[in-house]
């Protein structure tokens, strides 16, 4: 499979649906075809080359490298299911929506609904690993079904909402805009959310914290080791929890098989 490097030439005035940018979509294209690929911009479509310089890349594994502030580009790495999708800069909403495998790395901040469903689908990412070195917006990991979502920075409310399974690790804070603690894991059925101290949690939906230790933290710690330079706070979070952790089970309104791991209160 080919590898590509896309460098942003100019920042668009409107939001761009960039789901066409992907290893699988580009697999059978020539470099000219990639340059002429159409991006959706509202009711219009524009050529990819209008915003990006495109180059071939040589790499050990199939890779797309995108450079620039892509805050206005949504649906990047949508449906990604193999290889590496790396962004040097911020990204817009719906990063890695419907992703099924491979790796997505963002060296910057991400918008809302990272790893969520494609459009109005019912299931979010179903495999692979997403690493955000900065912050993430609202409802990160919404309806996530499998895979890993590591956010080195802070997350806005709604992380892990309606999560089906998988693992979300938050290196920074879970930001709360009201008195609901940021609605962490609201409606989650299964899966694990690893985070810092929760400012509040709905006690009707989650159990009280129970001290716990599990042997899977060992393999988790090992898996984060190669990523440490990108997400040191995630690595630190795992290391802290390997000593001791408190576990809340929930959402009790939806089976109560999900869990939130937090550091125990001193």
């Amino acid at each position: 499979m080919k590898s590509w490097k896309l460098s942003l030439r100019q920042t668009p005035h409107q939001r761009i649906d960039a789901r066409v940018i992907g290893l699988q979509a580009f697999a059978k294209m020539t470099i000219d075809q990639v340059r002429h690929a159409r991006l959706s911009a509202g009711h219009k479509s524009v050529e990819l080359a209008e915003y990006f310089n495109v180059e071939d890349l040589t790499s050990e594994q199939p890779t797309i490298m995108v450079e620039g502030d892509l805050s206005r580009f949504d649906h990047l790495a949508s449906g990604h299911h193999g290889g590496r999708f790396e962004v040097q800069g911020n990204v817009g909403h719906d990063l890695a929506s419907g992703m099924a495998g491979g790796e997505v790395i963002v060296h910057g901040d991400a918008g809302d609904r990272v790893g969520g469903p494609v459009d109005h689908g019912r299931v979010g990412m179903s495999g692979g690993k997403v690493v955000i070195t900065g912050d993430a917006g609202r409802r990160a990991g919404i309806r996530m079904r499998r895979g890993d979502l590591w956010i080195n920075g802070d997350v806005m409310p709604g992380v892990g909402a309606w999560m089906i399974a998988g693992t979300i690790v938050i290196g920074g804070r879970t930001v709360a805009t009201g008195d609901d603690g940021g609605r962490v894991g609201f409606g989650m059925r299964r899966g694990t959310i690893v985070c810092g101290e929760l400012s509040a949690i709905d006690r009707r939906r989650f159990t009280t914290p129970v001290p716990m230790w599990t042997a899977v933290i060992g393999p988790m710690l090992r898996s984060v080791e190669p990523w440490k330079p990108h997400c040191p706070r995630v690595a630190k979070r795992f290391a802290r929890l390997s000593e001791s952790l408190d576990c809340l089970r929930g959402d009790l309104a939806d089976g109560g098989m999900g869990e939130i791991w937090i550091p125990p209160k001193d």
Partner: protein
Amino acid sequence: MQINGVTIDDTFAEAFDMKATRLVVTGQDPWWVSRACDALTGFGTSVIACGVEIDVEQTLAPDQTPDGRPGAMVLAFAASGTELRKQIPTRCGQCVLTCPTTAVFDGTGDLSVPVHRDDPVPLGKTLRFFGDGHQISKTIDAVRYWRIPVMDGEFVCQHDLGWFSGIGGGNFLLCGDSVAVVADACRAATEAIASLPGVITPFPGGATRSGSKVGSKYDALFASTNEAFCPTLRHLPQSQIDDQTHAVLEVVIDGVDQASIANATRVGILAAAMKCGSQGLHRITAGNYGGKLGKHHFHLHALLSGSAESPDSSTEDASS
């Protein structure tokens, strides 16, 4: 050939292919790991009736285990893949799942022999049902683990284990003028072998007194006493016991490959001879069936003179 006054017969040990796997058992401390392994490897001496030949290969420091706790590596050998897939979940379910603080992982990852991941040995795939719906699956770096709630917290195990073609039945026989001397020699040999990677000596203390031959006069048995080495049957024409010998014990070695068994045989024989050569151990020989039972042959003289070709060469014969 003589080593420290002990005659080494010019013969060979005959070993055969087996299906094998390797597990890593971890626990809160070495004591609990040891208790789990005692149970896991119990009644695991011979495939003649135990299902698997299973023993601890080596103990592991916390930095050598997947979960950073003390552990042990366990090797298990079975006559068939079907038996291996039956025995491992049964034993882990009754002996490790039940043991406080423990967890089980696949230990085949760093083996030097080809490991098969197709049709793997089930572990959590079977044991998870003990969780009665409360079990949680977690996939980390493409490896699937099961977390089963138990009364001390969680039992964690891998979904399945890889398997490989191992070798069983490596052996050598120690002949001496008393049981006490031969038992000491056995102990010296198995203690020397215990530190070696890739091998186990699954019998009690690493040795068996009931060395067997294939077949029996009784139809129901497919193995029976090896009368050729029974001191009280020295009058039989097939006896291989000399006048000086009053006790024989057999050290049995299973290993991940031919090189491991060859090395263990050499180390074990040298240790026994050096310890008891002047005390009444006077002969070391090996068990074979004329080369018809197994394709792996370990010629004692060649192993001990260091003239053996690499076991990786095309021949299956460790001496040729």
